[in-house]
């Protein structure tokens, strides 16, 4: 019965990544090789981040929201941007178009993240007798994270890979990217500073991710247009 629950949660957490891969043309391009490389970059980035966090951050005894510590964390989180930059621009991929490359990198990035951060707690927790909604919420959070990451890689590919784009759109792209980068800090603030429920935080994340995804989509289309015309 509890294995059942574990299965449900795992399906919710990791299912969308597979569905995304199989449903979109990514599967037809054999993007797995791209994914594999991006996953390695993710792993490296996470390790560097860990070392940075361990070196610079103090252990806080309470769960209060400490502005200086959080800003430090936000700076360290910029390493993610660096990692995505490397994954998007510095690695050479064969056989894949720009549009699919960012999707493959984003998908893989989000999947590795879910795998590293969510699988172990899920395995330990969701199989226990105690029933909580937390693991399902965590699965939803993983979905939001997928949308976030793909949005961000889309913006990244606009920023770094696309040479010709309408002038008026450039600042918008940077603003959207900035919002995406600060998202973890915002969520942290909601969680600890305002001490929201986990469910509320997840709802916010889902909503925010959808909004940002729509915005990114519009930007992407806007960039696409001049080339098409």
């Amino acid at each position, binding site marked *: *019965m509890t294995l059942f629950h574990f299965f449900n949660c795992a399906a919710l957490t990791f299912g969308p990544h597979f569905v995304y891969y199989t449903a979109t043309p990514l599967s037809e391009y054999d993007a797995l090789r791209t994914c594999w490389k991006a996953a390695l970059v993710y792993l490296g980035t996470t390790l560097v981040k860990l070392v940075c966090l361990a070196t610079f951050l103090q252990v806080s005894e309470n769960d209060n929201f400490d502005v200086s510590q959080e800003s430090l964390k936000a700076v360290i989180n910029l390493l993610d941007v660096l990692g995505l930059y490397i994954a998007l621009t510095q690695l050479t991929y064969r056989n894949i178009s720009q549009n699919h490359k960012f999707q493959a990198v984003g998908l893989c990035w989000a999947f590795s993240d879910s795998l590293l951060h969510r699988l172990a*707690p899920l395995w330990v927790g969701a199989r226990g007798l105690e029933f909580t909604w937390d693991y399902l919420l965590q699965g939803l959070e993983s979905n939001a994270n997928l949308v976030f990451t793909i949005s961000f890689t889309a913006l990244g590919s606009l920023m770094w890979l696309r040479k010709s784009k309408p002038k008026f759109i450039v600042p918008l792209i940077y603003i959207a990217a900035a919002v995406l980068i600060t998202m973890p800090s915002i969520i942290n603030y909601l969680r600890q500073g305002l001490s929201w429920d986990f469910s509320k935080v997840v709802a916010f994340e889902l909503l925010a991710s959808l909004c940002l995804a729509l915005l990114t989509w519009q930007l992407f289309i806007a960039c696409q247009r001049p080339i098409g015309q």
Partner: protein
Amino acid sequence: MAMQRTLGAEWGHAMLGLLCVVAACIGVCDAVSVVDVYRMIQYDLQGVPFGCRRAALNHHASSLLLFSNSSQASDLSRSVIIVPVARASIAILKDLIQKKQILGGLLLLLPSRFSSHGSADGSADSEDIDADMLENISELEQLLIHKTLPYPVYFAFENKKILSLLREVEENDAAGKHATAVTGGYKLVVPVSEPKKLATVSLSNLQAWLPGLRGDGDASQLPTIAVVASYDTFGVAPALSEGSDSNGSGVVALLELVRLFSRLYANPKTQGRYNILFGLTSGGPFNYNGTSKWLKGFDQRVRESIDYAICLNSIGTRSNNLLMHVSKPPDSIYIKQLYDVFKDVGSQIGLEVTLKHKKINISNSRVSWEHEQFSRHRVTAVTLSKIEHAPDLLEHSGGIADKREKVDPSAVAQVVKLTAESLASYIFGHQGSPIEVFADGSSLAVSHSYIGSWLELLSRTPRVAAFMSKSDPLIEAFRKELSEHTPEVSIHNEPFDSSFVFYNVPKAELSIYQVASVGLDLIILVAVSAYLFILFVVLVISTKSLDDLVVMFRRPPTKKFKGA
């Protein structure tokens, strides 16, 4: 190590840092609550099994309503019935125990005031334990002790968490929604292995000699007066059998007597011509098995040198009537002599001492009073007690209802004073004349604070002999206290070879899980699959085309969902 700790903590930070995931997952563990539970005694008496015969528990929680409403036995065998002893009707509870109904388990909740470590949830409820409740619990205890229950029975203290759980369960039961595997609810789990027999049980008797003054060239042995109290207990829950009155009060009185007489004997001018032998004996609830062993261990001459043995038992209740239980006929010269002294002193300090005679039946193995063991060894002995009738086996042995509240320290002090004065006047031969050796305010006054502090300690220490090791901290504390006041202290460990066999697991931890029903899991499964399917369809249509989707579904669609 500090480095490791920092790294470990930073792991948490790292996880929080980007996507703030794991904190919630760690928090999840708090949702499971763990309660200390105390298992009901399990023992064999002459090969006959008694008590609760199981320890492992893994069933759904339900309330007494389920028992009183329904008659299906199958329901109950898979549920743990939670009963708040203070509020539940004792009659129904008795009915439940008397009927040979198979339960999944029984969890009896004692009022939080019963916890010797303060109320469990820190709430200071000033509600006193009333006498009725103690009476009920004591009655229930006696009932349970002599029953054989084929399911696990645990005791726990009420706290907010467990009471709110009980309320919820009661509401469900009242609404007819019984907790089973299908409807969810709470699951109570005690993950212990089956109880095993305790291999070797030893009884530790402590003895302390306070030597009397020997005249010059007086080679003959001095007569001895023995003061004895048994310190161990027996109750329905061994880990809760603290026995404040039976026989904590007797032990406290004995320790105070040791202190007083050591002071008196410290000065050669007031040192009497009697040795005083103090004995803290074990095995009291089991026909004073330890006392018997201890006496057998004595040299014949030593045993014969004992003039009197005074046993102290359950003297802590508030009452002005103290009984002197004897087994020799009351008109015997020895008894009369001792009784007169006690009676005279008693009348001076406002305590009425009554003589009560009960003949020993040698053929009966039951020994109701400690002095009977002495009498069987031809030593004149009496028991001072506030209990009127000779207790049955395992009755008045310091069970869960025998709490600190039952004992009045001033009542103990009064008996101490009586005994001390009587012994002094016996030793110094001042019969009849009103002298006061241990006068209040003098350096030999009975110390209320000493009595109070020992009483507190004993009321917090479960003392069932089977669960005490030879080096138990309490035995060590007794030894230290005795050797502080007397020159010669020794511990005699005797094997406990009576017809009792005990089983382990006196206490355990109960985990309470809120579990979901299979139905809910099914609904979630359907929802998740629907979500993934819709996602798939939307993505295919938006990135490829509708035709592609149709083409895909010509092939077996299950292949597409291998990841989901």
